[in-house]
């Protein structure tokens, strides 16, 4: 069963045991904290209290923590806000990234080179926190959900990945379409988009993950806490340790279970899209890295 190359031979038993233990340890290091959070969120309140705030193996499953935070309080609202920002933001980001990447990938675009440099330069000098705050202030985006979308509309890395992919489409396809009388718009719709499903999936998912995970901006751009996305709520009352009562939610579930349930709900969408993401991202990252 050995798939080792002939020149290498099969490593000794000792080496294989050491490697196996190292790998198991690394996997456990990643998965165990996630498991501990899920277990604590699902544990019976009494067991959590008896055990001092955490549970590794719930004796009896209890969904009280989830039913409490999903009953329509700040966490439920925050999940809706995050979901909305993620869906709208990802759609807008994809449309704008595709448009810009396609235009900049066409060899005959007049002024294409300076425009590309204009865009790439921003990679070298990202906007500072205070100047960006000034722009959001001046454009009147305060307390608007747009403040969590528009300042992050296009990611230069995603743009470079997509432009690189568009450039790899054989020029003959465009020539053939041009002979058929197709304009740039028709070529984008009939040639480029059908060929780019994979790269659009991975870039779209990168955007979606980024929108879902964003939390800091809501702190400085929103005065109104009811507009907070889930990350900001999580920060306030899990890592920041604010009392639950502050959010008008006190029930029979143990506070630790409720906290961990919020962590689980903030993580779950990522874990759900992860297998889809995984099929494409290695390729996406590598093309991007080579181009950059």
């Amino acid at each position, binding site marked *: 069963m050995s798939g080792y190359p002939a020149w290498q031979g099969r490593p000794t038993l000792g080496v294989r045991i050491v490697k196996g233990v190292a790998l198991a340890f690394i996997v456990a290091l990643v998965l165990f904290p996630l498991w501990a959070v899920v277990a604590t969120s699902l544990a019976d309140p009494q067991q959590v209290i008896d055990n001092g705030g955490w549970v590794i193996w719930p004796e009896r499953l209890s969904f009280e923590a989830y039913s409490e935070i999903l009953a329509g309080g700040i966490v439920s609202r925050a999940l809706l806000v995050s979901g909305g920002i993620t869906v709208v933001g990802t759609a807008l980001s994809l449309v704008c990234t595709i*448009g810009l990447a396609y235009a900049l990938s066409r060899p005959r675009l007049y002024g294409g080179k300076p425009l590309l440099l204009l865009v790439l330069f921003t990679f070298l000098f990202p906007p500072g*926190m*205070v100047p960006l705050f000034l722009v959001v202030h001046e454009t009147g985006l305060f307390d608007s959900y747009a403040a969590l979308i*528009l300042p992050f509309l296009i990611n230069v890395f995603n743009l470079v990945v997509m432009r690189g992919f568009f450039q790899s489409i054989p020029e003959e396809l465009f020539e053939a379409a*041009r002979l058929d009388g197709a*304009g740039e718009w028709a070529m984008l719709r009939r040639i480029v988009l059908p060929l780019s499903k994979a790269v659009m999936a991975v870039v779209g998912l990168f955007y979606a993950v980024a929108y879902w995970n964003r939390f800091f901006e809501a702190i400085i751009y929103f005065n109104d806490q009811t507009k907070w996305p889930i990350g900001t709520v999580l920060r306030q009352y899990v890592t920041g340790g604010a009392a639950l009562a502050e959010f008008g939610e006190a029930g029979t579930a143990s506070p630790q279970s409720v906290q961990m349930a919020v*962590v689980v709900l*903030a993580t779950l969408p990522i874990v759900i899209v992860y297998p889809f993401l995984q099929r494409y991202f290695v390729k996406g990252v*590598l093309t991007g890295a080579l181009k950059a």
Partner: protein
Amino acid sequence: MVMTQAPPEATAQTGPPKPAKRRHVNRTLYLLLLPGLLYFLVFHYGALFGNVLAFQDWIPFLGVRGSAWVGFAHFERMFTDPLFWSAVGNTVLIAILQLVFFFPAPLALALLLHSIVGGTVRKFVQSVVYLPHFLSWVIVVALFQHMLGGAGVVNGWLADLGVGGIQVIGNPDLYKPLVVAQVIWKECGWATIIFLAALANVDEQMYEAAAIDGASWWRRLWHVTLPAIRPIIILLLVLRLGEFLSIGFEQFFLQRQSVGAEAGEVLDTFVYYTGFASGDFGYAAAVGLFKGVIGVALIYSANKVAHRLGEQGVYKS
């Protein structure tokens, strides 16, 4: 604007040119790129212009036009501000710790992953170690608190064993090792991707020849593997050095308060607390601008060094 101009080189293209048609073609392209271009102009170049705040006593109510100009006063204050230098010190120290402990970790993990022959095991381990990259810093910090906090899992185990607990979270002395451990936990797996691709490209025949010459595993690593992936190691090292001061913001923002400013303040959190907590926006912008300019200088010089070493570097020319 450019939009009305026809491309001068267009006549050199294939097929019989129709001037009217070509102009139309360009209009479509400019329409497609317009939203993206507007985004960069407003939120990147607008923000670049927004750095004028660094030379003002900006008051939100008065705006840029109404606020008083102060010249280089914020920069003068910065150079004599012990709190600023303390933030610089913490940033540099964390950056060095990241370079020493975080930079080699993915290379070691990639070598380990590369040596696994079983496809299923390797795929599984890769799926697991890439996952934390996609979790937000809030979640990562929450996980670390649950595991290592005063009432966390590890301290619970230690108590069961009858050993005294260790205070990791909120301990100024352990803060720097903690943040480096967190970044390794979150990003180490993800960072192996590029190393793994480089390892997959190493010529098999080189290994074979080395093995026939009787080279041990260590000698093959030293004389075949590492020289073969040297360009990519240097490239990543250059990228890292170029972003030396960009150690991240959210991670430190989330935990700075638990250990206090002396141990936990880094440049980005200094900007945040000066600007948003104390309302001293001009001074905060000056510190941010200073960091940005140093950052560009670092990338530029790191790239020069890479060229000197005969590698391609981050950008050409």
